């Protein structure tokens, strides 16, 4: 589904990714762990099309060159990034945003757009699953949301858009244990043989809830080791500093 070959990225002349290779097949959950500054967020930004990077290498998504696509085209094709720091959008009500988003994607895929009633039905079901108060729909997007609410809102968006590849950028940071469990359940409910996940995190904690199929260690812009869930445990014991 996603194939990354020798990916290099620079921002403002500084090399962040230095030849990264990664393959994700349908239905797989991959975790990338690494210390601060190892290039984790750069990777998620590049996969979702953020401007400002000088990028080299090959990235294909379902056989298509991903790097040629605009951000919104990637979303239309089924790539979703749950932001580490979701942005506050004043004056835009969450309900309007969610409906605009799902219908933009449906339209691009040539599917029928949801009317107000169909949308409401879908959103209510997803809110209930995530134990999220319906009041958030009438609030301005992420404005005044707590850290936990912002992350839950990302998972809510993910669950209504039902992407093929979800990239979770430190979704666990700033979450308390209850929120972490709810968020993890949200992710687990989307797991199936077609949907894949790339989970970026510092800590093993999230991986106790969402058991990954593969764990990769990112250090200095490269994946230095790959393994299964046991690798995460080993990392937690040894720490990034001494891990080689």
């Amino acid at each position, binding site marked *: 589904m996603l194939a990354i070959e020798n990916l290099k990225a620079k921002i403002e002349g500084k090399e962040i990714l230095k030849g990264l290779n990664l393959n994700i097949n349908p239905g797989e959950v991959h975790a990338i762990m690494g210390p601060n500054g190892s290039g984790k967020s750069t990777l998620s930004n590049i996969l*979702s*099309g*953020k*401007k400002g990077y000088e990028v080299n290498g090959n990235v294909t998504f379902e056989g298509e060159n991903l790097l040629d696509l*605009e*951000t*919104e085209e*990637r*979303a*239309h094709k089924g790539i*979703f*990034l749950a*932001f580490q720091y*979701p*942005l506050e*959008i*004043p*004056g*835009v*009500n969450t309900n*309007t*945003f969610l409906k*605009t*988003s*799902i219908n*933009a*994607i449906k339209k*691009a895929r040539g599917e029928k757009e949801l009317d107000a009633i169909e949308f409401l039905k879908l959103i209510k079901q997803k809110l209930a699953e995530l134990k999220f108060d319906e009041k958030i729909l009438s609030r*301005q*997007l992420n404005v005044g949301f707590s850290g936990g609410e912002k992350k839950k809102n990302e998972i809510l*968006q993910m669950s209504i*858009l039902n992407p093929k590849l979800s990239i979770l950028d430190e979704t666990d940071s700033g979450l308390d244990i209850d929120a972490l469990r709810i968020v993890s359940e949200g992710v687990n409910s989307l797991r199936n043989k077609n949907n894949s996940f790339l989970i970026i995190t510092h800590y093993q904690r999230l991986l106790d809830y969402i058991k990954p199929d593969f764990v990769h260690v990112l250090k200095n812009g490269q994946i230095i080791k790959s393994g299964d869930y046991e690798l995460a445990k080993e990392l937690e014991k040894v720490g990034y500093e001494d891990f080689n």
Partner: protein
Amino acid sequence: MQTEIKSNFEKSLSEGDFSSLQKEIKEKNFNKFIEQGFPTKRIEDWKFSDLNQIISTSFENLDFSKKDNQSSIDDDFVNEFEHNKIFFVNGNISKIDFSYENEEKIILNHNLELDKELNDNALLNLNNAFVSNYIKITVGKGYQFQKPLILYNYLTSDLDSCGLNMRLDINLEEDTSLNVINISNENIKNNFLNFRQKINIGKNSVLKNYSLDVNPTSNIKYSFKDIDLDKNSHLEYFILSKGSKFAKHDINCSLNNEYGSVVLNGIIDLDKKKHHEIKTLINHNEENCKSYQLIKSVLNENSKGVYQGKIYVNSKAQKTDGYQLSRALLLNENVEFNAKPELEIYADDVKCSHGSTSGNIDENSIFYLMSRGLSHAQSKRLLTNGFLNEVIEKITNEDVKSLVKKLTDIQE
């Protein structure tokens, strides 16, 4: 232009039905205007909007005496809610309809009340010189309007290169309330409109005034309102400034007795080469009064926006609470925004603040929205709508709020 305007003035004076005193005042005002001319940027109040230059580049000649009493349009294009209406057609009042109200409580006075003193503001002298068709609406003590009043301003398609001077005054007696909406349906041609309103809000009374300039036109518009507030009265004022080629809204509010309050919010939303200005002066003349102002501007293409806002606090006006904020979103490098916020305070126990920001649209926010499948244009529109929506949400009349959302294409 001077010889033409003089003959226009002679014509309007001879055709109008004026008393000899009125004629005398009009002549004085006219002579003063001729001496002053249209305001230039050398005048402080006009430093960001050189009207003289705008007029001379927009018109070869302006006809101030065109009379058109035949046109009677009464197409009320607002059909979202029931309302009373007054139609101005080509500057003349053509229809008055207060069918939702107890008409005994509404007094209409057509006897022109001209300013006794000459003004520093040349356009007020011009207005006094030419205005003929006049109305003053007085709402009798204790009467609350059932439905809003819409002042429709129509210009017919044959009107071109004309100067129109209009005047409508409102007087709210004690314990009254009224919602007024000013809205235009003008053709695309070039005209100069000089609209004057004197408003008095009596004790314990509430006026909500919504001024909506939406239709794209080549008109040059100036509107001057002076609003006096008595004890415990309230004014809610909202401006949507969008359609005209040039518009300047000049609003002077005077809080003349205790516990009065003013909420004055505005939107400047421009494209093409439009140039709009909102200028406000809030006089806090007595104790315990409040004023709040929020002006937001979105500038696109080659447009220019201006906000000049002053809060004046008299030495008697202790416990004044004054607030003023201007925020502008500049969508490209060719636009210009000027803000001149001013506080002039002579009392020592007051709370006053002002602020002004202008900036570009946040690219990180655009990225966030695009990552959810929205196009760049859609994301930009959602962000600018959200930016303006904060002002629209402050409208307390729900019918007007939905109308404004519809007119600005901002979704619920």
